[in-house]
């Protein structure tokens, strides 16, 4: 099991994490905007996460914390 | 007093810097000051110092900026065209308040100019050749002994005020040889530098040396605090020499090499019944306005003499402020004002003003 958390207010909605997730479980939360005015990334299906940290590796803003 | 040595001006500067604890020198060859680099190249490695010939004067001043940012006493030297190349660096040093000593052995200009002595970098040195509102202390030695003493003092001033101090000589002063009497112990004052970027060692917060502040309010505040500092320097660090000033009717205002010529003019003038005094600025910035005020009572007129088209002339006029007439005599391109021409000018002044 692995867990990924997003520091919402630092996300700029660049979607690079979305593009690299092998499990395709990251999506942009289009229901809310963070204080920068972006739709932040989030994971709804956490139990599919394998903790590969690809998302965090490609994130330019250290938004993503990965636990395993 | 200590050891006496017959020394070339440029070498006295280098020796003075080392005695002042400056063990880092970054320079670039340019006539007529390169002996400073030669001396540093020979001596610094022997005293645990670092001499580095940079790829350009631009690189050299930025190496000075780097070393100075770590709180290290550091110096560079050059001559007019090279000093022009360093102006951006001098503005950065001023904007980030990094102390450094910069030596300018002035030569004829503009452009590639010549290699003979001149004083035509006065405006650049005292009014700021770089961008933005800033000042740097400018010291004007007029003997090899003063090249030594003022270079040592330059480091104390630079550290005391976190400012660039320029020692401004000319091709004659740099190349001539005179006896220098060295002190046994140099009057070195080195305040500690908590602001320096030496690596925080995880024991203090981060230090940042920068001159960019995108917020205009912050940038103005930085400038205002420096103006305060410059005002203090103007009040405390003004230096000049008055010569034969008790009751002279005319005063020559001259510095560096020209001040020496003026002194022999004054001796000869006295024999012709012309009572002439000398005001010799030792700091070009801050300019010694008080010296002008002091003699205003007896002075009928002032004669500024420079190896330029008349640059300090404007500071003299500002200081005299119209109270008395100000005359000018200058030579350019490396020509040196002749004693006879200065005397002739004084005679004309006497005729006009009686």
């Amino acid at each position, binding site marked *: 099991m692995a867990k990924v958390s997003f520091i919402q207010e630092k996300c700029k909605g*660049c979607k690079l994490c979305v593009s690299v997730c092998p499990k395709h479980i990251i999506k942009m939360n289009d229901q809310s905007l963070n204080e920068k005015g972006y739709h932040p990334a989030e994971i709804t299906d956490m139990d599919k996460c394998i903790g590969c940290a690809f998302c965090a590796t490609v994130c330019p803003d250290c938004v993503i914390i990965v636990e395993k | 007093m200590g050891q006496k040595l017959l020394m070339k001006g440029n070498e006295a500067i280098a020796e003075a810097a080392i005695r002042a604890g400056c063990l880092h020198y970054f320079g670039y060859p340019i006539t007529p000051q390169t002996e400073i680099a030669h001396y540093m190249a020979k001596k610094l490695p022997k005293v645990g110092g670092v001499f580095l010939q940079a790829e350009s004067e631009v*690189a050299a001043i930025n190496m000075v900026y780097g070393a100075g940012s770590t709180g290290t006493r550091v110096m560079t030297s050059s001559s007019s065209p090279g000093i022009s190349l360093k102006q951006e660096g001098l503005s950065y040093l001023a904007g980030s308040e990094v102390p450094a000593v910069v030596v300018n052995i002035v030569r004829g200009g503009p452009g590639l100019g010549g290699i003979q002595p001149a004083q035509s970098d006065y405006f650049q040195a005292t009014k700021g050749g770089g961008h933005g509102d800033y000042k740097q202390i400018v010291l004007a030695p007029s003997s090899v002994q003063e090249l030594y003493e003022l270079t040592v003092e330059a480091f104390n001033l630079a550290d005391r005020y976190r400012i660039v101090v320029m020692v401004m000589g000319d091709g004659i002063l740099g190349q001539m040889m005179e006896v220098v009497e060295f002190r046994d112990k140099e009057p070195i004052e080195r305040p500690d530098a908590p602001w320096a970027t*030496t690596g925080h060692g995880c024991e203090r917060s981060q230090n940042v040396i920068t001159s960019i502040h995108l917020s205009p309010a912050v940038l103005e505040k930085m400038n205002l605090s420096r103006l305060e500092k410059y005002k203090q320097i103007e009040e405390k660090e003004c230096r000049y020499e008055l010569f034969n000033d008790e009751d002279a009717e005319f005063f020559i205002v001259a510095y560096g090499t020209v001040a020496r010529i003026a002194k022999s003019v004054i001796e000869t003038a006295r024999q012709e019944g012309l009572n002439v005094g000398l005001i010799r600025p030792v700091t070009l910035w801050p300019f010694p306005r008080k010296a002008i005020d002091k003699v205003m009572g007896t002075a009928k007129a002032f004669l500024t003499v420079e190896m330029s088209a008349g640059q300090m002339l404007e500071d003299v006029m500002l200081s005299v402020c119209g109270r008395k007439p100000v005359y000018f005599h200058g030579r350019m391109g490396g020509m040196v004002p002749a004693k006879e021409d200065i005397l002739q000018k004084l005679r004309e002044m006497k005729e006009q003003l009686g």
Partner: protein
Amino acid sequence: MAIIFQKPKALKDTSMHYCPGCTHGIAHRLVAEALDELEIEGRTIGIASVGCSYNSYDYFGCDMIQAPHGRAPAVATGVKRSKPDSIVFTYQGDGDLAAIGTGEIVHAAARGEKITVIFINNTIYGMTSGQMAPTTLLNQYSTTTPYGRIADLHGYPIKVCELLATLDGPAYIERASLADVKQIKNAKKAVKKAFQVQMAGLGFSMVELLSTCPTNWGLNPLESMNRVKDELVLHYPLGVFKGESLEV
């Protein structure tokens, strides 16, 4: 469960000003990870240059100095020569390093200055909004090559790693890329190795990181990453150009 990935300590918490998807942020992280893993932040002095990363001192936690445009290698030289036990790095873009700063970088490398240069090559001037850089590719559009870069008019893009590898001073030169997870992991190794080369006093080290500029390329972040892999890498091949067999 343990944390296996988070912001490195040597990076401050400040949110970075870079555009969404700009790989400057990744490059900053890799440098900070190296400082953390090598435990050298305390004795490191970074030199910020002029360009999008002008205020990298707001992001790196180590002592920092702001250098004039192009002069970071000279400033770094002054720092290293006066504090030889410190670790000194410059963080420069392609305009800063390969245009106005060509003299400084060539001579710092030729002297074998024991500093580490982090060179971000995104083939454009970002901060000033999209002008041609010395690394702009032929036919690439920019605000100063509005009809595409034409060799006859604008000359040819400069390969900095290859240029500096002809000098004897450099101990380690590598070009890496930030264009995908695999390449970022390799870039991380390169950055760390560059600092280790400096720690071992072996001479000048530089890592060129092929990077993106979504805003001025007119592409979205993912398209920009692909452009690095499809176009930049062709002209700027990845690999080690000096110090291949170096053990640190």
